[in-house]
Protein backbone atom coordinates (compact mmCIF):
# COMPACT_ATOMS: atom_id res chain seq x y z
CA UNK A 1 0.00 0.00 0.00
CA UNK A 2 1.28 3.46 -0.89
CA UNK A 3 1.73 6.00 1.93
CA UNK A 4 -1.28 8.18 2.49
CA UNK A 5 -2.21 11.50 4.01
CA UNK A 6 -4.65 11.63 6.91
CA UNK A 7 -6.53 14.93 6.97
CA UNK A 8 -7.96 15.51 10.43
CA UNK A 9 -10.75 17.88 11.32
CA UNK A 10 -10.83 18.21 15.10
CA UNK A 11 -13.82 19.65 16.92
CA UNK A 12 -14.53 19.70 20.63
CA UNK A 13 -16.65 16.53 20.54
CA UNK A 14 -15.70 15.04 17.19
CA UNK A 15 -12.72 14.01 15.12
CA UNK A 16 -13.19 13.37 11.42
CA UNK A 17 -10.61 11.98 9.06
CA UNK A 18 -10.24 11.86 5.29
CA UNK A 19 -7.57 9.61 3.81
CA UNK A 20 -5.90 10.58 0.55
CA UNK A 21 -3.46 8.81 -1.72
CA UNK A 22 -2.20 11.49 -4.08
CA UNK A 23 -5.31 13.57 -4.79
CA UNK A 24 -7.69 10.62 -4.56
CA UNK A 25 -10.01 10.40 -1.59
CA UNK A 26 -9.77 6.84 -0.30
CA UNK A 27 -11.79 6.88 2.90
CA UNK A 28 -13.59 9.17 5.33
CA UNK A 29 -15.03 8.60 8.77
CA UNK A 30 -15.99 10.47 11.88
CA UNK A 31 -15.36 9.62 15.54
CA UNK A 32 -17.29 10.95 18.53
CA UNK A 33 -15.19 12.25 21.44
CA UNK A 34 -16.13 12.22 25.14
CA UNK A 35 -16.73 15.59 26.81
CA UNK A 36 -14.15 14.97 29.54
CA UNK A 37 -10.77 16.21 28.23
CA UNK A 38 -8.48 13.36 29.39
CA UNK A 39 -10.93 10.83 27.98
CA UNK A 40 -11.27 12.84 24.74
CA UNK A 41 -7.50 12.94 24.34
CA UNK A 42 -7.17 9.21 24.95
CA UNK A 43 -10.00 8.44 22.53
CA UNK A 44 -8.62 10.78 19.84
CA UNK A 45 -5.09 9.38 20.24
CA UNK A 46 -6.32 5.81 19.86
CA UNK A 47 -8.40 6.74 16.82
CA UNK A 48 -5.52 8.55 15.12
CA UNK A 49 -3.15 5.66 15.92
CA UNK A 50 -5.60 3.18 14.37
CA UNK A 51 -6.04 5.34 11.26
CA UNK A 52 -2.30 5.84 10.91
CA UNK A 53 -1.62 2.10 11.09
CA UNK A 54 -4.56 1.02 8.92
CA UNK A 55 -3.87 3.43 6.07
CA UNK A 56 -0.11 3.75 6.46
CA UNK A 57 -0.41 7.51 6.87
CA UNK A 58 2.98 9.20 6.62
CA UNK A 59 1.49 12.69 6.32
CA UNK A 60 -1.21 14.50 8.23
CA UNK A 61 -3.10 17.74 7.64
CA UNK A 62 -4.87 19.77 10.31
CA UNK A 63 -6.35 23.21 10.74
CA UNK A 64 -3.86 25.71 12.10
CA UNK A 65 -5.49 26.83 15.30
CA UNK A 66 -4.53 30.09 17.02
CA UNK A 67 -2.74 29.28 20.29
CA UNK A 68 -3.38 32.66 21.93
CA UNK A 69 -6.84 31.56 23.17
CA UNK A 70 -6.34 28.07 24.60
CA UNK A 71 -9.47 25.95 24.45
CA UNK A 72 -10.08 22.24 24.85
CA UNK A 73 -10.05 21.99 21.07
CA UNK A 74 -6.77 23.87 20.60
CA UNK A 75 -5.10 21.84 23.37
CA UNK A 76 -6.31 18.63 21.75
CA UNK A 77 -4.96 19.73 18.37
CA UNK A 78 -1.56 20.64 19.85
CA UNK A 79 -1.33 17.33 21.68
CA UNK A 80 -2.24 15.32 18.56
CA UNK A 81 0.25 17.28 16.44
CA UNK A 82 3.00 16.43 18.94
CA UNK A 83 2.02 12.77 18.97
CA UNK A 84 1.99 12.62 15.17
CA UNK A 85 5.41 14.27 14.92
CA UNK A 86 6.83 11.88 17.52
CA UNK A 87 5.60 9.06 15.26
CA UNK A 88 7.53 10.59 12.31
CA UNK A 89 4.39 11.77 10.55
CA UNK A 90 4.91 14.99 8.56
CA UNK A 91 2.25 17.41 9.74
CA UNK A 92 0.85 20.22 7.59
CA UNK A 93 -1.07 22.91 9.46
CA UNK A 94 -3.42 24.86 7.19
CA UNK A 95 -4.65 28.41 7.76
CA UNK A 96 -8.38 28.82 7.25
CA UNK A 97 -7.73 31.87 5.03
CA UNK A 98 -5.61 29.73 2.68
CA UNK A 99 -8.35 27.10 2.54
CA UNK A 100 -11.03 29.69 1.71
CA UNK A 101 -8.82 31.18 -0.99
CA UNK A 102 -8.05 27.80 -2.54
CA UNK A 103 -11.66 26.76 -3.11
CA UNK A 104 -12.90 29.62 -5.21
CA UNK A 105 -12.21 32.60 -7.35
CA UNK A 106 -12.79 35.08 -5.89
CA UNK A 107 -11.78 33.49 -2.56
CA UNK A 108 -14.67 32.09 -0.56
CA UNK A 109 -15.74 33.87 2.62
CA UNK A 110 -17.15 31.11 4.80
CA UNK A 111 -16.31 27.52 5.68
CA UNK A 112 -19.88 26.54 4.70
CA UNK A 113 -19.03 27.58 1.11
CA UNK A 114 -15.97 25.29 1.20
CA UNK A 115 -18.23 22.50 2.43
CA UNK A 116 -20.59 23.11 -0.50
CA UNK A 117 -17.70 22.92 -2.96
CA UNK A 118 -16.39 19.70 -1.40
CA UNK A 119 -19.92 18.23 -1.43
CA UNK A 120 -20.02 18.91 -5.19
CA UNK A 121 -16.70 17.16 -5.65
CA UNK A 122 -17.58 14.15 -3.46
CA UNK A 123 -21.38 14.00 -3.08
CA UNK A 124 -21.09 10.84 -0.98
CA UNK A 125 -19.53 12.90 1.83
CA UNK A 126 -22.70 14.97 2.05
CA UNK A 127 -24.92 11.92 2.36
CA UNK A 128 -26.77 11.16 5.58
CA UNK A 129 -24.17 8.70 6.85
CA UNK A 130 -21.36 11.24 7.04
CA UNK A 131 -20.93 14.10 9.48
CA UNK A 132 -20.36 17.54 7.84
CA UNK A 133 -16.91 17.68 9.43
CA UNK A 134 -15.88 14.92 6.99
CA UNK A 135 -16.28 17.61 4.30
CA UNK A 136 -13.87 19.83 6.26
CA UNK A 137 -11.37 16.99 6.54
CA UNK A 138 -11.62 16.29 2.80
CA UNK A 139 -11.06 19.99 2.03
CA UNK A 140 -7.90 19.97 4.13
CA UNK A 141 -6.64 16.81 2.47
CA UNK A 142 -7.24 17.99 -1.08
CA UNK A 143 -5.63 21.35 -0.30
CA UNK A 144 -2.42 19.78 1.04
CA UNK A 145 -2.14 17.06 -1.61
CA UNK A 146 -2.50 19.51 -4.50
CA UNK A 147 -0.12 21.98 -2.83
CA UNK A 148 2.43 19.16 -2.58
CA UNK A 149 1.79 18.21 -6.20
CA UNK A 150 2.14 21.68 -7.70
CA UNK A 151 4.37 23.59 -5.32
CA UNK A 152 7.72 22.15 -6.28
CA UNK A 153 9.18 25.62 -6.85
CA UNK A 154 7.55 28.89 -5.92
CA UNK A 155 7.45 31.69 -8.47
CA UNK A 156 9.07 34.93 -7.48
Amino acid at each position, binding site marked *: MRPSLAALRIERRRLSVAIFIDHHLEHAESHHLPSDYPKALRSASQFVHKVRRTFRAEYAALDKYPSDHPTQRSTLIQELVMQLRRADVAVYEVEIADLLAAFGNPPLRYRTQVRQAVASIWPILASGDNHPSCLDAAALGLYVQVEKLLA*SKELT
Partner: protein
Amino acid sequence: MIEILDSMLKKSQQFVPETVSGYIALQLARQLDDIEHVWNYLALLDRQPLSAIVAALTKAKTHGNGHHNARGIFEREFAPFLRKGHDHAA
Protein backbone atom coordinates in the same frame (compact mmCIF):
# COMPACT_ATOMS: atom_id res chain seq x y z
CA MET B 1 -29.60 46.98 -17.56
CA ILE B 2 -25.94 47.79 -16.92
CA GLU B 3 -26.25 46.37 -13.41
CA ILE B 4 -27.66 43.13 -14.81
CA LEU B 5 -24.82 42.89 -17.33
CA ASP B 6 -22.26 43.64 -14.58
CA SER B 7 -23.77 40.92 -12.44
CA MET B 8 -23.67 38.42 -15.34
CA LEU B 9 -20.05 39.31 -16.08
CA LYS B 10 -19.06 38.87 -12.44
CA LYS B 11 -20.79 35.46 -12.33
CA SER B 12 -18.96 34.35 -15.47
CA GLN B 13 -15.65 35.26 -13.78
CA GLN B 14 -16.47 33.32 -10.62
CA PHE B 15 -15.15 29.81 -10.33
CA VAL B 16 -15.85 27.27 -7.60
CA PRO B 17 -14.56 23.79 -8.43
CA GLU B 18 -17.08 20.96 -8.73
CA THR B 19 -14.53 18.26 -9.48
CA VAL B 20 -10.98 17.43 -8.39
CA SER B 21 -9.81 18.47 -11.88
CA GLY B 22 -11.56 21.80 -11.40
CA TYR B 23 -9.77 22.29 -8.10
CA ILE B 24 -6.39 21.47 -9.66
CA ALA B 25 -7.15 23.78 -12.62
CA LEU B 26 -7.83 26.63 -10.20
CA GLN B 27 -4.53 26.12 -8.37
CA LEU B 28 -2.68 25.80 -11.68
CA ALA B 29 -4.20 29.05 -12.98
CA ARG B 30 -3.29 30.78 -9.70
CA GLN B 31 0.30 29.59 -9.81
CA LEU B 32 0.66 30.91 -13.34
CA ASP B 33 -1.17 34.14 -12.45
CA ASP B 34 -3.70 33.40 -15.18
CA ILE B 35 -6.89 33.04 -13.19
CA GLU B 36 -9.13 34.50 -15.89
CA HIS B 37 -8.33 31.49 -18.08
CA VAL B 38 -9.05 28.82 -15.46
CA TRP B 39 -11.46 27.08 -17.87
CA ASN B 40 -8.61 26.56 -20.32
CA TYR B 41 -6.59 24.78 -17.64
CA LEU B 42 -9.61 22.62 -16.82
CA ALA B 43 -9.90 21.65 -20.50
CA LEU B 44 -6.16 20.93 -20.56
CA LEU B 45 -6.51 18.61 -17.56
CA ASP B 46 -9.20 16.70 -19.43
CA ARG B 47 -6.90 16.15 -22.41
CA GLN B 48 -3.39 15.74 -21.03
CA PRO B 49 -1.97 13.48 -18.33
CA LEU B 50 -1.54 15.21 -14.98
CA SER B 51 2.08 14.04 -14.81
CA ALA B 52 2.87 15.91 -18.05
CA ILE B 53 1.18 19.04 -16.75
CA VAL B 54 3.09 18.93 -13.46
CA ALA B 55 6.35 18.36 -15.36
CA ALA B 56 5.62 21.38 -17.58
CA LEU B 57 4.77 23.49 -14.55
CA THR B 58 8.02 22.52 -12.86
CA LYS B 59 9.96 23.35 -16.02
CA ALA B 60 8.17 26.69 -16.34
CA LYS B 61 8.94 27.61 -12.73
CA THR B 62 12.56 26.53 -13.05
CA HIS B 63 13.28 28.34 -16.31
CA GLY B 64 10.79 31.19 -16.09
CA ASN B 65 11.73 34.46 -14.51
CA GLY B 66 8.49 35.55 -12.87
CA HIS B 67 4.84 34.69 -13.56
CA HIS B 68 4.57 36.05 -17.10
CA ASN B 69 7.63 34.28 -18.46
CA ALA B 70 6.75 31.04 -16.66
CA ARG B 71 3.25 31.15 -18.13
CA GLY B 72 4.72 31.60 -21.60
CA ILE B 73 6.96 28.56 -21.16
CA PHE B 74 4.04 26.53 -19.85
CA GLU B 75 1.77 27.58 -22.74
CA ARG B 76 4.38 26.65 -25.33
CA GLU B 77 4.44 23.12 -23.90
CA PHE B 78 0.74 22.72 -24.59
CA ALA B 79 -0.01 24.78 -27.68
CA PRO B 80 -2.60 24.48 -29.19
CA PHE B 81 -4.47 23.26 -26.12
CA LEU B 82 -4.14 26.60 -24.37
CA ARG B 83 -5.32 28.98 -27.08
CA LYS B 84 -6.51 32.05 -25.25
CA GLY B 85 -9.87 33.61 -26.06
CA HIS B 86 -11.57 30.23 -26.23
CA ASP B 87 -12.78 30.03 -22.66
CA HIS B 88 -15.69 27.66 -22.08
CA ALA B 89 -15.27 26.36 -25.64
CA ALA B 90 -13.89 23.04 -24.40
